[in-house]
């Protein structure tokens, strides 16, 4: 029941008083105390126009749901899916951005270009190989760390030990890449230490190789491996390891037959995450890599630096990269799932 008097901010309380007196309360004195006791939300809910609006909006569960869902669905379609679809569309065009008066045609030439020149597909396969190797290195390095955190640190200290590792990961990609440059440079810390110990006379050129790139990328992605592994290991009951030990299994067997199979889920999600992230690095290979380690991200970026009409080719290459990364990670996850099911049988 909309109250005609209930308009304007100033006279609100007063208006509602009279409004309510008409309908529900016999004594106007009691109403006065109720009205002033009401919170802002109570007053809002009783305010006529708002009340009508809400009743309209929530008339049926279906309508209420549509109002809740409309914006998220629209956002996800236009903002999350849109960029990918537009990239796919541009990758199939013969010219973009198009000059006025020129007709656009759909073509597969941009994709054909990829296979035509080794300068294009070499970086592509190199990127996939690097990403796979770096992901594996990250796994090997972080697994014992996650294992230690989850199994050998008291619960009270776990957050502290974990937090210690999290701090450096709040620092950005570029700053951490630069830190690796300082570490590995010809006058860097590693070379200084090696020289000081007497192992080398002349500095080892670590920089601008696949090694320096690997150190950098493992450094950047370690956390994304560590956290899934940690949460998988944390769920693993200690009693399983003890049972295995009681049955005579050594440390290695316990790890190989108990911990590893039961944390496959964590390994699989960590590896997927790290693989996807490492294929997407652009600045790190530019800064830490050399001419012999050009990755596909640099190839793709090249098409967007020049002002010419190379966008469709760049879009096509990005699509190839994305599809390849998706297919590889999906296959990997399938494989890991099969492995897990096989182990539990």
């Amino acid at each position, binding site marked *: 029941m909309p109250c005609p008097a209930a308009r304007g901010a100033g006279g609100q309380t007063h208006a509602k008083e009279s409004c309510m007196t008409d309908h529900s309360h016999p004594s106007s004195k009691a109403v006065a105390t109720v009205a002033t006791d009401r919170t802002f939300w109570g007053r809002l809910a009783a305010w006529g126009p708002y009340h009508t609006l809400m009743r309209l909006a929530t008339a049926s569960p279906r309508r209420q749901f549509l109002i809740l869902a409309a*914006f998220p669905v629209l956002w996800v379609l236009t903002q999350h899916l849109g*960029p990918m679809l537009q990239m796919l569309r541009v990758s199939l065009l013969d010219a973009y951005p198009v000059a006025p008066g020129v007709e656009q045609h759909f073509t597969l030439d941009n994709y054909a270009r990829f296979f035509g020149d080794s300068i294009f597909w070499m970086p592509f396969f190199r990127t996939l190989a690097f990403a796979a190797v770096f992901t594996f290195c990250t796994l090997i390095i972080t697994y014992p760390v996650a294992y230690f955190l989850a199994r050998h640190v008291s619960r009270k200290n776990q957050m502290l030990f974990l937090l210690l590792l999290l701090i*450096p990961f709040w*620092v950005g990609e570029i700053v951490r890449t630069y830190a690796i440059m300082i*570490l590995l440079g010809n006058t860097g810390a590693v070379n200084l230490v090696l020289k000081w110990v007497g192992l080398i006379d002349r500095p080892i050129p670590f920089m601008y190789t696949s090694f320096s790139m690997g150190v950098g990328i493992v450094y950047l992605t370690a956390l994304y491996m560590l956290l899934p592994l940690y949460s998988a290991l944390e769920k693993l009951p*200690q009693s399983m390891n003890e049972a295995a030990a009681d049955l005579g299994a050594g440390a290695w067997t316990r790890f190989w037959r108990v911990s590893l199979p039961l944390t496959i889920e964590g390994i699989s999600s960590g590896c997927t995450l790290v693989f996807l992230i490492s294929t*997407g690095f652009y600045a790190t290979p530019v800064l830490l890599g050399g001419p012999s380690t050009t990755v596909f991200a640099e190839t793709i*970026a090249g098409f967007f630096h020049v002002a010419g009409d190379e966008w469709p080719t760049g*879009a096509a290459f990005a699509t190839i990269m994305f599809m390849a990364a998706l297919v590889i990670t999906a296959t990997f996850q399938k494989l890991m799932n099969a492995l897990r099911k096989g182990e539990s049988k």
Partner: protein
Amino acid sequence: MNDRPELFRGNRIFLSCIYWAFVLYVFVPLILMILMGFKDSKFIGFPIRSWTLDWYKGVFDNTEVLSTFGYSIAIAVLSTLISVIVGTWIAVLLEGRKFLGRSVMFGMTVLPALVPGIISAIAFRIYARYLGIEPGMGAIVWAHAVHNVPFVVLVVMARLSTLPKSQIEAARDLGADPLVSFIRITLPYLVPAILGASIFCLLLSFDDFVRSFFLGGYEPTLPVLIFAKLRSGMSPEINAIATVALILTAAIGIWAERFTRRMNKES
């Protein structure tokens, strides 16, 4: 937590060595980078023989660098505001009643977080052109906002799943409409998650390079500025800038960690 320490002692010592080695690996590069910012020489490299604070003075005297800090922070704040509102809305939808296509919706929601960096940047660049957004602050804010939405959704959904349904029902029984019960019951319950997600988004945006690089105009964000300076040669000046950025992000991170943990304990 270990009932039978004698069984695992050997492991334990071995693993703790690995852990501390990893801590070193994670910290040493950053510490070296910070130290280099105090070197009294134009050349990056060890050993450091004499020390100076001039590089830091230079950072705070340089209006270009300072305005870059401001620019990056403004972008981070604006994009976080958008991400948090949109992300919370999506989370409420996904965590609510079941509906047809919910898993598809969820898949599309997390998509931007799974697209590798360079591809995401390229896709945003092309889409910005399509929407008519000029490269510059608006484009970066938009790209960061879209990219960060999935993280907000995941964090808020996790918190939302632990909200006692009885509270909402009680509010509804007492006459609150869905909007009021959301604002008075759900939202206060979500505050720790929303704050945590906001800090995470702020840091993601502040640290992001690849999207800012491809969507930026003439004015660089902080990572883009450091990248540009690095390409023209290393200098302790870069160390000083990077260190200030590092201290800023680490301080926000540590503060947020403590803050959200305290809030989680209270509720």
